[in-house]
């Protein structure tokens, strides 16, 4: 109890908690879940964009997309490393995900159907991720906060790249414009859902707020995102697919229509357009790679034995 009070006092004083510091079991558990879900999201998130690497329409875009997806893999690696500081192994966390017991961001259960989806993912999905993640750079847990600083820096580069793809399409041929608008139409609502359920029904938020893991509510972040995005869409000459969208003259906020939370629940429950494909792809990579991992381990052990034998001579 004294531990707990001292811990909360450090949190309240905006001190960073480090791996070897005492922390409540629930704090450790919450963070392990959140960081590993975040890591899984980065890794599963490689798939929808990876789907266009082989078909990117110019060499410059191809290189940029490949580098971006590689960055996501890197984010996954830092985040697993951050989760490991809490005592969970990467292997165990990955196994949970492959067994369907751990979640990843539902947004990656939507398909990338055209090249414009790559633009929209950079612009909106990364944009929403940054909105969610900037406050995490001040998260009370040190390794997570530091990982997020690095992640956010790269994400904003990706976000600008995505917006630039959209700009090129929006200033391109009629077909390119239509492709951009179509992608926006398909992604808009799923992106708004990325901020999570509305505040009245959101779980975990109370303790996460107390522990300074979470600093803004879902609805606050969502509103911030909409307010930032509407002028960008206007600049592109694209129409946000929400006929009810309007600016409140008093607050300046852009008010949006009701979100279809039933769709969110379904996708979360495994019933999204690509849930099965995403899990199948990750499982296949894991299963097909088993013999490689085994070989690397066998070789490392042989080598160690040989070194021991040599040292004994």
């Amino acid at each position, binding site marked *: 109890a004294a531990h707990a009070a001292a811990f909360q006092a450090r949190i309240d004083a905006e001190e960073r908690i480090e791996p070897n510091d005492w922390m409540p079991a629930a704090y450790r558990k919450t963070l392990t879940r959140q960081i590993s879900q975040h890591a899984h999201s980065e890794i599963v998130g490689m798939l929808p964009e990876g789907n266009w690497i082989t*078909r990117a329409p110019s*060499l410059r875009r*191809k290189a940029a997309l490949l580098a971006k997806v*590689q960055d996501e893999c890197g984010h996954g690696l830092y985040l697993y490393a951050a989760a490991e500081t809490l005592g969970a192994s990467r292997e165990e966390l990955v196994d949970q995900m492959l067994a369907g017991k751990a979640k990843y961001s539902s947004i990656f259960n939507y398909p990338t159907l055209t*090249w414009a989806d790559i633009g929209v993912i950079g612009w909106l999905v990364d944009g929403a991720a940054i909105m969610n993640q900037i406050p995490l750079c001040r998260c009370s847990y040190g390794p997570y906060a530091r990982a997020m600083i690095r992640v956010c820096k790269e994400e904003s580069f990706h976000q600008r790249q995505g917006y630039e793809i959209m700009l090129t399409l929006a200033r391109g041929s009629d077909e390119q414009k239509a492709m951009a608008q179509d992608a926006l139409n398909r992604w808009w609502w799923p992106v708004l859902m990325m901020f999570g359920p509305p505040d009245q029904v959101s779980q975990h938020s109370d303790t996460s707020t107390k522990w300074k893991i979470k600093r803004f509510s879902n609805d606050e972040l969502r509103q911030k995102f909409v307010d930032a995005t509407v002028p960008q869409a206007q600049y592109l000459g694209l129409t946000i697919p929400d006929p009810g969208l309007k600016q409140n003259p008093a607050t300046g906020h852009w008010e949006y229509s009701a979100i279809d939370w039933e769709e969110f629940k379904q996708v979360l429950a495994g019933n999204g357009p690509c849930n099965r494909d995403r899990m199948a792809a990750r499982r296949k990579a894991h299963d097909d790679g088993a*013999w490689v*991992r085994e070989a690397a381990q066998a*070789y490392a052990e042989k080598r160690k034995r040989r070194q021991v034998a040599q040292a004994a001579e």
Partner: protein
Amino acid sequence: MAVASITVSETPLVLYTLRRADDALILGHRLSEWCGHAPILEEDMALANMALDLLGQARELYSYAAEVEGKGNDEDKLAYLRDVRQYRNLLLLEQPNGDFARTMVRQLFYSAFADLYWRAMMKSSDATLAAIAAKSEKESDYHLRHSSEWIVRLGDGTEESHARAQTAVDDLWAFTGEMFEVDAGERALFNAGIAVDPAGLRSQWLDTVSGVVGEATLVLPSNDWMQQGGRDGRHSEHLGHLLSELQSMQRTFPGVAW
């Protein structure tokens, strides 16, 4: 009727540069197919790294080929608007990824060559090629080390990994001879000090490859028959499928900027 593929005025230097550009693009494309599907996340990173290096080389080489040609082509036209018979890459590099062992053996065979080749090309009398060579040599050196380490791990790992690595060596061996072949146009470039004769690199290449393969407890095949054709656009059936994917956007939406 719309124009399908571009024509390229293949002077010796244009053709020479284009062949190396195609090598880099096609191998880079193959490596990029692994993205999101590698055996471990660290390899997702490493394979993407190598793919990015190669794409970078391809872009510089295509741009230079376009500049030398001087007919208004550019890197994207050269990459996206030539058909399978106009592609000039080595057959080795278009071979499908197969399993991880096959991808790494392909990488070893090529990088062991590329590293020597680019090092020699750093002395090219053509300043652009020499500059590309300096950068490419550093990259190839890393690709060679990375693939060598894996071949040793796989060859000297488990029974299964050994068998897979040996199968890959056996299957890809016949494609290695093409790296050392030249035609008359290339020979003229050697004499001008622009290019280097790859035949002179062969024994050193064989030393490197034999060393790695030996340490990996694998053996090189005794069959000396070597397959050729890539440099003249006589490819395997695999390249056409690769190009139908690589080029699909540019072919579907001709003439727009992305």
